[in-house]
């Protein structure tokens, strides 16, 4: 058991967590499981970003400058946005048109670093194109952009709130 704790601490060190403040307090060894009824507000949206022109969907006007900070020199069209309070293993789908759909599933509402873990998928007509597990702090977006040969991007944003 002592060996397992040491191994675990070593792995945490490798992972860049820094030394545990008091090694003897690393008990139980595994991080406590999150409460079964924990929920998170998960938001998924899709935007079409076009480098060829800077046209703007009027629906996106309130955040046009913010989008241009992140994706300079592009035009933007809102394809879809969905938000839902999810339980563990709950998911939501954001339809984007042309058969594209983005899916998010809440895997862990709170890990030992205070982050959430999501599974994120992009499919077209039900055919999976991309899937990833992302661990992220709350109140913070991450982006996934699917690039097309002509330079157009399908920009997907995912954010989680407490």
């Amino acid at each position: 058991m002592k060996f397992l704790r040491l191994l675990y601490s070593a792995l945490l060190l490798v992972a860049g967590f820094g030394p545990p403040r008091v090694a003897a307090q690393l008990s139980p060894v595994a991080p406590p499981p999150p409460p079964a009824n924990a929920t998170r507000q998960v938001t998924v949206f899709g935007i079409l970003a076009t480098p060829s022109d800077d046209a703007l969907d009027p629906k996106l006007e309130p955040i046009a400058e913010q989008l241009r900070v992140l994706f300079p020199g592009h035009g933007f069209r809102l394809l879809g946005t969905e938000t839902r309070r999810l339980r563990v293993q709950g998911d939501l789908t954001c339809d984007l048109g042309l058969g594209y759909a983005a899916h998010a599933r809440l895997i862990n509402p709170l890990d030992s670093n205070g982050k959430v873990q999501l599974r994120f998928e992009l499919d077209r007509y039900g055919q999976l194109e991309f899937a990833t597990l992302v661990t992220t702090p709350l109140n913070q977006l991450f982006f996934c952009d699917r690039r097309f040969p002509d330079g157009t991007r399908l920009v997907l944003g995912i954010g989680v709130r407490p």
Partner: protein
Amino acid sequence: MKPCDKITRSLSAGADPAGPELAPHLAACERCADWAESITALDAAWSATRPAEPPAQLFDQIWSRIDAQPTRLPFPAGPSRAALRRLAAAASILVGLGLAWLWGLSRANPRQPDPRTSPPLATTPAVAYQFEAEPGETLFLHITPDGRVEADIRDPATTSETITVAAEFEILNFMESQAADAL
């Protein structure tokens, strides 16, 4: 909701920072005052450089161009060598965490996968990618037309892109409220 969260949301919704609801808090709270300032800067930049509104059919044309392109991605695709090098260089992509996690799984039950961490959909292939973002970092995953995945992390601490963080938060607020309105 915490008071500061309320304030930042009101600011995102377009409330006047000098108004009676927000002014007292902004005078007392440096974090929210900074927030209000960056939003005002964004608004100013926007009004100075606002593009013309596009004709309604423009985006439909762009979408149909995409529809006509060969866009089928190979899946599951492993990370490219270049992507792997990037990932190796990015300290926040925690290979070690993966190890600790796998080790935790094998320790918890060597035969059966933990339902919290195994691929949740029976019909879905295992994920080829795993990423972790740190507070304040913006994670961009780029999927190239030929199916490669590249991770790009913007860290405001090293690139002074604090405005990016404000922009992100605004976008999340907006998208959440738009989606909620549609319900």
